[in-house]
């Protein structure tokens, strides 16, 4: 895997290692400057072993998720790459007929031997090219006479054994190997397995109905030389024969189908010469109808793309867990700060500065951080192994690769470093927060009284808050935006610009004081300022260059530049000069800054039609309303509840409501994360700001529980007094549950939509025949061969054209460029006979005007006119996943749409045919009938060369799996599959992937559960005396334990119920509004209650199990000791 989010992995690795080293350097500096505070921090780690274990367990999750995501990507990349090297061996490029620019019938797309000879002569002794080999092939049925087994579709390659040379390198063979003479055949291992072949067996190759006997002289590994070309399919049966014998059987002339090219060097090193070889060979082919395909290079690039996609997918899905992890780290440090408060107060009283407390906390935090990053790395490797096992078990319907777990040093280093960096940043923020304490309250362990901010509620205070935030985070945001709009380099600079927040760590010291006063607290490092001052100038220079080079308004985010460059720069002196003790209205400043960013995001989203930025912008602006109301002290509960409800209202509104104002906005699965995090935040605000209204309801319910009443009463009371803890925990659990519930519900609905029995279209068995041996009448052929045909109710015939056989265009329009074009796009076509068109049970998603019923559309198609039916792939959808507008039609269909035309071109002849689209088939039809559906006569007119014949059989009941086997064993040229089996395979693969992603996202639950554990352990310590009192007045041990369990259960249930409620309702909105898929809007929504109950049950039970230990510890507290405890 070389790229992630468009950034080179090498760059990511270099930056993350650099930042990690910088972090260690900072820590070493702190340790050197003030070893006592540093040691104090470190020595806290072993004080409470269980708590430490729990903290490490909770903190490791970000590393686990990243390790698993990167390692899965690396595994896919390395397996696919290794498979490509194994399969292609010494074959680096191929030369073949260029059908795109030189339409010609299939049997004429050949390369004469003379062309091969000319290339050999031209490049003899070339330093980059070591060999050429001419290869011919045919797809034929093969029968093993000894075992009576047959393979309907084997690729038989043919070449001159004398010319194999280096191409044999890396191909393992038994028997006579490539010494092919007469009718000897070297079968590949897949064909050998399919036919149970032994050396010496006689096989029958059937060409156009005529058998030809061959004798197996050896068995070889998979290679283009033994008929295996496709990278993506698992089974590649084939074999190799002598070219003379091949020509004898097929009647082919003195020519080949492709020329294999091998670059100088072995299977891997030769790839490096591809560019040079391309430069040399392409000019030679310029005036010929042939083209050079860089097969190995293209395949490797594709493999890397797939692996990058996998990593991105897992990282995005893992974001829920990472976000929950961030909250947990913050929560843990709030807890630790509470625990250490008296010590910190004492330290401050005897002269320690805030900086010292921050350093001490950082030392402790980094101890946990390092431990958790290491443990996380190992755990992440374990998770990878488990995930790969699940992917591999998904079988043939999965990736088509047998993945072998691979860990790369780079991937592991990046995971480790990113884990360390993320945790460090959060710990820094939490440490600064913890260090701001009132010394007297801290020593006496009294609740922190918030000093009244005289600027609260004033516009001056508001502006000051904003400017300080700008100074702290302006560079970061500015660089991020620049990174996205100008160059990714700025995204990396964004990390560097985190010196902004670091400034505020320094601000907590006394750097702005005169030097003589400053010496009391130690020397202040000045170097960060030079960096900060340098960055805006650098940025300005880049900006000027950009502006003068490109003046298009859409590419000049001027406001962003201003926000990123000028304001932070103005803010620095402000930050440095203002009174250190004067409180800053941070939240108001953050809110206002967020609103500026929000407006920019909205503009950006509208400019680029991106839903992510638009929705993020709207959410930020709404949140800003909350912070401004809060700053001006306007009924906090009402304003925050109102703002949260507004946020929820926005996210619940279908995109169609906004489209009149915003136009169509595109969004992918990153919207899933954004919606989750925003909605859960809103839900959490509503719950925490209204806990005092909600809890009495729970307590009232609890008052019916007899002896348990006291436990319920006390349990319900505590969450109310610690809103931050309660809110953070509810948010963590809610976030993960929302992700899991939404993913599972949407998945269930899509599975039902695509993998229901509707996908069969009323057919039970599909039978593909060998291209060289079609069957005129399937039932008759079966009967003639002695099979019982009474189970067959209906048999219909059709022909398929594969991708690349037929091309289409929307006359005169290119949606991407919004201008006329002649570009053709390949798309598969299914030509169905009248029986199929009449007897299939597929419905229409949309019918064109003039067709009252689905039957009318089918009847029109069957009439033989040049009508066509399109599938969901050719209308607008998510282009990034190849699921929409594949023909560049720029069409959005709805019922009663105006029939429109598309032009089909036959690449064999260049002939064009105009087809009229009169309907779009149901999504379920796209599972087995992906493509444009026309009548068989129409297909034969448009593309007479269509050769892939398929039969569709409906049975009079009975077992379709058994009858498919009967068909296969009766007709040598038939590959028959039961639709039931195909659907079952796909369902089980889908279930496997569902489990994989549920498991992966479920990792985040560990965070929520760990949070409950941390809170409970802390609560036992904090409430020791209260527990003693409860026991004194008559609480039994069990009641104390129950009270703890109820309390955790209440918090966990709040998060679970919020996630459940929001997940299900949000899925319902997405589904019924048609935002996910137009068909979804017309298909009933279902909720997988059973599955959701299991997920919720696991979450609740795990939460309670985690609280069991602290609950038990609480119940065992010695009463007298606890009462004495302070």
């Amino acid at each position: 895997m070389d790229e992630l989010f468009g950034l080179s992995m090498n760059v990511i690795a270099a930056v993350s290692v650099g930042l990690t080293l910088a972090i260690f350097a900072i820590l070493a500096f702190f340790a050197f400057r003030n070893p006592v505070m540093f040691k104090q921090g470190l020595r806290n780690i072993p004080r409470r072993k269980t708590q430490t274990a729990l903290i490490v367990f909770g903190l490791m999750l970000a590393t686990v998720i990243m390790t698993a995501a990167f390692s899965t990507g690396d595994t896919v990349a390395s397996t696919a790459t290794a498979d490509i090297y194994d399969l292609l061996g010494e074959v680096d490029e191929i030369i073949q007929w260029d059908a795109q620019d030189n339409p010609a019938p299939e049997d004429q797309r050949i390369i004469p031997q003379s062309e091969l000879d000319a290339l050999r002569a031209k490049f003899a002794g070339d330093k980059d090219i070591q060999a050429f080999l001419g290869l011919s092939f045919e797809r034929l049925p093969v029968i093993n006479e000894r075992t009576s087994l047959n393979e309907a579709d084997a690729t038989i390659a043919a070449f001159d054994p004398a010319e194999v040379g280096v191409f044999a390198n890396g191909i393992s063979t038994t028997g006579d190997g490539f010494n092919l003479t007469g009718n000897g055949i070297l079968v590949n291992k897949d064909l050998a397995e399919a036919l149970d072949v032994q050396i010496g067996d006689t096989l029958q190759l059937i060409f156009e109905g005529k058998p030809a006997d061959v004798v197996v002289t050896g068995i070889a590994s998979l290679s283009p030389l033994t008929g295996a070309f496709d990278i993506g399919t698992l089974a590649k049966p084939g074999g190799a024969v002598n070219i003379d014998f091949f020509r004898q059987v097929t009647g082919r002339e003195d020519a080949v189908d492709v020329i294999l090219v091998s670059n100088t060097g072995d299977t891997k090193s030769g790839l490096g010469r591809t560019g040079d070889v391309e430069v040399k060979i392409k000019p030679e082919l310029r005036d010929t109808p042939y083209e050079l395909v860089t097969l190995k290079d293209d395949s490797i690039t594709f493999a890397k793309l797939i692996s990058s996609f996998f990593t991105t997918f897992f990282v995005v899905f893992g974001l829920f867990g990472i976000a929950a992890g961030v909250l947990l780290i913050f929560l843990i440090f709030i807890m630790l700060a509470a625990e250490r408060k008296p010590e910190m107060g004492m330290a401050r009283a005897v002269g320690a500065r805030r900086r010292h407390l921050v350093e001490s906390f950082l030392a402790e935090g980094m101890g946990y951080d390092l431990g958790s990053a290491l443990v996380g790395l190992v755990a992440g490797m374990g998770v990878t192994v488990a995930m790969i096992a699940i992917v591999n078990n998904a079988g043939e319907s999965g990736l088509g690769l047998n993945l072998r777990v691979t860990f790369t040093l780079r991937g592991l280093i990046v995971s480790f470093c990113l884990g360390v960096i993320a945790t460090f940043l959060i710990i820094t923020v939490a440490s600064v927060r913890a260090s701001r304490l009132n010394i007297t309250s801290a020593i006496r362990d009294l609740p922190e009284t918030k000093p009244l901010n005289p600027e609260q509620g004033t516009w001056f205070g508001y502006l000051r808050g904003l400017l300080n935030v700008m100074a702290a985070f302006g560079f970061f945001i500015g660089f991020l935006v620049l990174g996205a709009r100008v160059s990714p380099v700025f995204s990396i600079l964004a990390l560097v610009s985190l010196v902004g927040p670091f400034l505020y760590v320094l601000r907590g010291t006394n750097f702005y004081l005169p030097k003589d006063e400053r010496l009391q607290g130690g020397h202040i490092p000045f170097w960060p300022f030079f960096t900060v001052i340098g960055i805006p100038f650098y940025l300005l220079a880049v900006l000027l260059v950009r502006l003068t080079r490109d003046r298009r308004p859409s590419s000049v985010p001027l406001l962003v530049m201003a926000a990123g460059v000028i304001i932070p720069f103005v803010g620095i002196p402000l930050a440095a000069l203002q009174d250190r003790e004067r409180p800053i209205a941070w939240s108001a400043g953050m809110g206002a800054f967020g609103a500026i960013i929000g407006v920019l995001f909205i503009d950006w989203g509208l400019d680029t039609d991106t839903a992510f930025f638009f929705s993020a912008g709207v959410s930020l602006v709404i949140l800003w309303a909350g912070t401004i109301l809060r700053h001006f002290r306007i009924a906090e509960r009402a304003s925050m509840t109102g703002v949260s409800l507004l946020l929820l209202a926005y996210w619940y509104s279908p995109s169609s409501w906004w489209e009149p104002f915003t136009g169509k906005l595109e969004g992918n699965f990153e919207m899933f994360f954004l919606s989750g995090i925003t909605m859960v935040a809103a839900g959490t605000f509503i719950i925490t700001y209204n806990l005092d209204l909600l809890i009495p309801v729970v307590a009232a319910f609890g008052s019916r529980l007899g002896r348990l009443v006291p436990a319920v009463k006390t349990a319900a009371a505590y969450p109310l007094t610690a809103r931050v803890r309660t809110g953070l925990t509810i948010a963590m659990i809610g976030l993960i549950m929302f992700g899991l519930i939404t993913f599972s519900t949407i998945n269930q609905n899509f599975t039902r939509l695509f993998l229901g029995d509707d996908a069969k279209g009323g057919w039970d068995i599909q039978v593909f025949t060998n291209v060289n041996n079609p069957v005129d009448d399937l039932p008759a052929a079966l009967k003639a061969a002695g099979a019982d045909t009474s189970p067959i109710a209906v048999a219909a015939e059709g022909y398929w054209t594969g991708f690349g056989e037929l091309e289409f265009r929307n006359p005169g329009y290119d949606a991407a460029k919004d201008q006329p074009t002649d570009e053709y796009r390949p798309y598969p076509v299914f030509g169905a006979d009248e029986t199929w068109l009449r007897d299939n049970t597929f419905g229409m998603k949309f019918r064109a005007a003039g067709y009252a019923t689905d039957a009318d559309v089918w009847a029109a198609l069957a009439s033989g006119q040049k009508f066509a039916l399109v599938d969901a792939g050719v209308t607008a959808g998510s282009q990034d996943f190849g699921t929409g507008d594949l023909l560049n039609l720029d069409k959005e269909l709805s019922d009663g749409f105006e029939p429109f035309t598309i032009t089909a071109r036959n690449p064999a002849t260049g002939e064009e045919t105009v087809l009229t689209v009169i309907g779009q088939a149901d999504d379920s039809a796209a599972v087995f009938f992906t493509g444009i559906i026309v009548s068989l006569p129409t297909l034969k007119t448009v593309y007479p060369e269509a050769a892939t014949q398929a039969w569709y059989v409906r049975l009079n009941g009975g077992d379709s799996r058994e009858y498919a086997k009967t068909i296969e064993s009766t007709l040598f040229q038939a590959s028959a599959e039961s639709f039931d089996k195909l659907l079952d395979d796909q369902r089980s693969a889908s279930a496997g992937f569902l489990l994989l992603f549920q498991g992966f996202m479920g990792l985040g639950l560990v965070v929520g559960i760990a949070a409950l554990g941390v809170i409970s352990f802390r609560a036992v310590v904090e409430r020791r005396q209260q527990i003693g009192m409860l026991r004194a007045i008559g609480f039994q041990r069990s009641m104390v334990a129950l009270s703890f369990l109820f309390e955790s259960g209440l918090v966990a249930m709040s998060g679970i119920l919020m996630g459940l409620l929001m997940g299900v309702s949000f899925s319902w909105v997405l589904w019924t509004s048609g935002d996910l898929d137009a068909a979804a809007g017309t298909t009933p929504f279902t909720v997988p209650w059973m599955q959701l109950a299991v997920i919720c049950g696991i979450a609740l039970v795990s939460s309670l199990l985690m609280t069991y230990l602290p609950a038990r510890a609480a119940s065992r507290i010695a009463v007298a000791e606890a009462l004495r405890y302070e």
Partner: protein
Amino acid sequence: MSTSNGASGDDIVIEARSVVKTYASGTVQVHALRGIDLAVRRGEMVAVMGPSGCGKTTLLNALSGLDDFDSGRVTIAGTDISKMPDDRKTDFRAREMGFIFQTYNLLPVLTAAENVELPLIVSGVRPKEARVRALEALATVGLRDRANQRPNQLSGGQRQRVTVARALVNRPSIIWADEPTGALDSATAKEIMDLIVQLNEQEHQTTILVTHDPKVAARCHRTIHMADGLIEREDSQAKMQAAVATGGAS
């Protein structure tokens, strides 16, 4: 039956025989109680005084069943609690005893009324009835109008009144008070003691009170002086009052 303290056997509600308690503090063994013999009559109000670390609170904890002891016997209202399992001891406490602590030990998350009704609910009283009785108890201590306020909304004296109400709400036969006025100013301390004495006279509960303050001790029927884990001597109320008056109490 007569005891070393001269109490009549029929009236004895708390009886301790040779109670020994030793615990470890780091590597040092602390002999907190070295064989205490004590008898307290029903309705009697007894103060326990002594220097810090003499074992006053340990004695109170051992007698009330809050803490175990190493040897000896403690009988409360004729029931030997020495070998009683924890569950039964807890029930027994809930039924028979009320506690007042120096640091109030109120649950900060509950209102005054909820704190007071908690012992009733633990004892199985129906919530509605518990609330009525809690409000009555709060009225007794003069805090009926503060029933819905949380501890942090009350003054120190008010909090201790809530604690007193909580101790009395179950109508226990014994009240244990550990430094009930220790955290209060003298005026408030006097108010609280007035309340405890008044309630003792009205309800006739036995009250054991640990204190450092001779003025508080002088309000009790008798005072036990402890030193090094042993009862050093006993003073009558008259003697204590005289000592306080002359400023010679210790």
